[in-house]
Structure formats: structure tokens, C-alpha cells
């Protein structure tokens, strides 16, 4: 029957892809800032699912933990701190909508044309079944690659890894300093 024909991989891809696109559109369409944040969380969760499906298990878990669990919590904090009633839902004038819809549609069509025109990308993988599960267990090789030791003779990423970590440290301290609450001159507690 129908269920047997559909192999699991593409079935779940369909599910996660629909979720991701639907909630991305949701972010675009809703005017209430808090709903936007919530739809963004769901959309990024669905993309994490897509990463798992594409065999990037480590990146999927990182996305869930760092991106959704960290960055978006930061964003929601920002939304909470500024969500005074008059800024929560700011309507967008209809004429802007038409402009954006047309431009966005054109860009989308262009990208899709490119995505589906290159034959090399549309060529199916000859024998997907033989990819052993070990192939997708990449947590250890990624860890080693980040510390400079590449197993499949690629280049090590030690240097960019250090740059990124120092960069992140500096940025977070700067952001913390920038956003500290400046007390009014009076309450010198």
C-alpha cells in the first residue's frame, strides 16, 4: 500500500521541510513580535531536524543547543525587555507588502531555477543504501578536525577555531558592557 512505497528518509524530509518553510513564512507574515520569535524557534528546530537527515548529526545537535537554545533565548530576552504594549505588533502598510512580495517572489524564482537547473545537483546518488551508519557518526572526526588533525587528509581547522573562540569571547564581553543598565544619576545603591 502507499505507506510501504515511501521510504522513511524522504518522508521525514518532507515533514521537516514543510515545517521549516511554513514557520519561516509565519515569521514573515505575523506582526506580533513575540509570535515571530516563537515561529523562528520552531523553524530553526525543523532545520536542525533537516541537518540530522542530511547526515550531519553533530551539527544538528549543535544547532539545537547553541542556536536555538542559546541565541534565540538571547533574542527572546531582547523581545521581553522591549515588548512594551505599543511595540508588540506594528502593522506594515499594504503598499510595502506588494513591493516586498514581488521582489521576494522574483528572487525565489531565480534561486529555484538555479537550484533545479544544474544537472549535477539533480543527479541522484547511485547507491545511497551502502553509506554505512559510521559515516554519519562524525562527532569524533569533527572534534579532531577542530584541533588540527584531519583523518581524511583535509586541512586542519585549529587556527580558525581559535580565532572564532577569541572573537566570541570579545564580542560577548563587549555586548555585556554595551547593554549594561546605566543607573540614573540618583539611586547610587
Amino acid at each position, binding site marked *: 500500500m502507499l505507506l510501504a512505497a515511501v521510504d522513511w528518509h524522504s518522508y521525514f524530509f518532507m515533514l521537516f521541510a514543510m515545517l521549516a518553510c511554513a514557520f519561516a513564512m509565519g515569521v514573515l507574515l505575523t506582526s506580533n513580535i*513575540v*509570535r515571530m520569535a516563537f515561529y523562528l524557534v520552531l523553524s530553526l528546530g525543523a532545520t536542525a531536524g533537516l541537518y540530522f537527515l542530511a547526515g550531519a548529526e553533530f551539527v544538528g545537535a549543535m544547532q*539545537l543547543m547553541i542556536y*536555538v537554545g*542559546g541565541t534565540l*533565548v538571547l533574542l*527572546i530576552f531582547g523581545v*521581553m525587555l522591549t515588548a512594551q504594549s505599543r511595540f508588540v505588533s506594528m502593522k506594515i502598510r499594504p503598499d510595502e507588502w506588494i513591493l516586498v512580495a514581488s521582489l521576494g517572489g522574483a528572487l525565489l524564482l531565480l534561486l529555484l531555477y538555479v537550484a533545479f537547473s544544474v544537472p549535477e545537483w539533480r543527479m541522484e546518488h547511485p547507491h545511497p543504501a551502502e553509506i554505512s551508519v559510521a559515516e554519519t557518526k562524525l562527532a569524533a572526526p569533527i572534534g579532531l578536525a577542530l584541533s588540527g588533525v584531519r583523518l581524511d587528509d583535509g586541512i586542519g581547522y585549529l587556527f580558525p577555531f581559535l580565532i572564532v573562540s577569541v572573537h566570541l569571547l570579545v564580542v560577548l564581553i563587549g555586548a555585556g558592557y554595551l547593554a549594561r543598565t546605566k543607573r540614573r544619576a540618583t539611586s547610587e545603591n
Partner: protein
Amino acid sequence: MVDFFVSTFGMSPTVAAILAAGIQCALLLNVVAVGALVFIWMERKIAGRIQDRLGPTRVGGRFGWLQTLADGIKLIAKEDLTPADADALLFKLAPYISFAASFTAYMALPFSDGWVAVHVNAGVFFILAVLGLEVFGTILAGYASGSKWSLFGAIREAAQVVSYEVPLGLCVVVPVMICGTMDLVAIANMQSAGIWSWLIFHDPFTFCIFWIYFTCAMASVNRAPFDLAEAESELVAGFHTEYSGLRWSFFFMAEYGSMFLVSGLAVILFFGGWNGPLAIMSDKIIGVIPGLGLAGQPNAWGFIAGCVGAANFIMKATIGVTVMIWVRWTLPRLRIDQVMTMCLKYCVPLAAACFLGAVFVKAEIFGLGYLSVDAWLPGLRSDRLEVREGWMTEVEGEGVTLSTEKTLVHGDG
């Protein structure tokens, strides 16, 4: 499970897969629901004992063990009202996010050797990631309830949970580093040679890492002295003030679910998961005396060993939950800034220092190697070699010998 259905009932693999997934979900949902049921009852009984009173005694037989069921039915029957200026959609959705997040983490939690719903290679990492999502439910509940006070509670709790994930992550990395893998089943199997193989006794650093882990776990689950969110004295009931009936019970279940989950993780990482102090089921007790060697065998004996292992695991995790309950009913509550300073000024530096110490012990730098138990009882961690083998086989062939690699593998004797 799937091939079992296919071979015996001749079902098509898809239907079998759906059925298997359904059974596993139902099983896990029951484990969590019954667990929450038992822990709520236990909390009331232990709180009673601590406060020199009896706790529930009348509902359902002698020890009032059906009390929670009665509460559950009352909660279901209670009216789920939504406050007027609440953001209806988010208000209704928040408890389910909280419960879903705390429940999905059970997928990767092994109860016994091989008894795990989804054998995720990076199990520890997956559980930490999903635990991080639970904070969304609280934030949305606080915001969507529309009242100033629940917003206070929500922001406080979010700040606390997010900042306690850092030391929690640091503490979890130490056992992972010692066992070399993030796979929970492998970590627990490495502690199968009696009480000395448990990671908490591995070296002094891991010992105090456990205590930091347990404090941070209590904080990230909002229990005991850190339960700022529902600090009754100032914020009435924090983010779930406006909830009642079934929705409120979902928050309650999420809290107890993640409480058991966090203590379960502690048991696997530090207390040898499903191996008892005298690991009779594994092939070597205390690394020397030959045990029954039943663990992991496909036949009925293996199943019994599995049951004993699961009982071991649940009993140890329940001890962890009891300690959380005990601490809750004795200590007063910390203030929000004290909770934050404790996290940033005490937990994170301490965890980092112990982590550094554990790394030195593991890599035998400064001669610290003799601090660890493995140095004195070499036969303890027999199967650490296979993990290393399975992971690094390609390297041996091409002669790329990692210099650090050779010294790391200590126990190969």
C-alpha cells in the same frame, strides 16, 4: 523490535517500524507519567516526614499512594481558564513545549544495557541540547499570561536556567572525557566492574565534579534553594500563576520528568548506570572475581540481567530524586542575584578547575596519573579499548601514529 515484527507477523517493514515506534513511545510516556506520579507522592510523604507529620494517608489504601492519581483527576476536571489579556495561542502552547522538551530527552536515556529508545551516538550532547529547550516553555508561559508578576518569574527563571547550562555542560564533559565517548550506553558499560569502577571514585576531581553537577542540575531544573520561578513569597507562583487544571499539571509533570532525567544522567555518568555495587551480572566483579556474565546476552538470561539493571538504575535515580526532595524541604530559597553570583563566581570556575585537574589526571601530566583508580586497579575498564579501536581504526593502517594517542590508552596492560 522492527525485525521481530517482520519475521514473526510478516508485516511490511514500514508498518512494523511505525508499530515499534508507537510501542516505544507509549512505554516511555508511561515510564515518565508513572514516575512523575510516584515522585509527587514521594515528595509529599518525605516532606511530611521531614516536617514531623504523616503526609497523605487516606486516599487509596494505607499509605495514600493513590493521592497523586486523585490530584490528577481533579486537575483534569478543573476548568482551564485563559486570562483576558493573555496571548491565547502562546498561552495554550507553552505547557506542551515544556513537557515535550523534558520528555524527548528520555528518548536517549538508557535504562539498562541496550534498553534505550533511540541509541544516539552523542547521547549526552542530545540530552543537554533538549534540556536547553525547556526554558522556552517557561518564557512563553510567563509572557503569555499577561501579568507583570509572571513576566518577572519567567525572566528570572530563563536567566537562571540558561546560565546554569554552562557549568552543567562543563561537569558533563569530564566523564565523557574519561570514557572517551558520548554514548551513554558505552559510558555505563565501562563502569561495570563493581563499585570501584564507578566514575565518581575515578579521581578526586571527578568526585567534586559530581557535587557541582548535582547543584547545577538542581538549579537548571528549578528545584530546592534555586526555585526562583515559583518563589511563592514574592511572585505568588511565578510563571504558572495563571494556569490551572490540566495545563498546570503539564508544567508539574515537566518538572518531575526533568528531575528524574537529571538524576538519571547523574547515575549513568557517575554511579555506574545499571551496574550494582557488586556487579554480579557482568563478567568480572570488582575486576577480579568472575561474575555470572549474563549482561547483554540475547537469550532470556540477558533479559533478566536487563531487568536487574533497570531496577538498579531506577533505584539509584530515585535516591537522587529523594535527595532533591530532602534538600527542598530543609533549605530556604536564594535570591536571584545570589543564584547568579553562585553560578558565575563559584560553579563555573570550580567546574573548570576540576575539569583541568581531571584532564591532568587522565593525561598523566605532572604525575597526577596516580591519583586515579585506574592506575591502581588496571583491569577495571576493559572495554575502553574497543571504543578507542572502533573510532580510530583507519589511522593505524596508514602509520599516522598520534603521539598523544599511545599514552592516552592506559588500561591496555
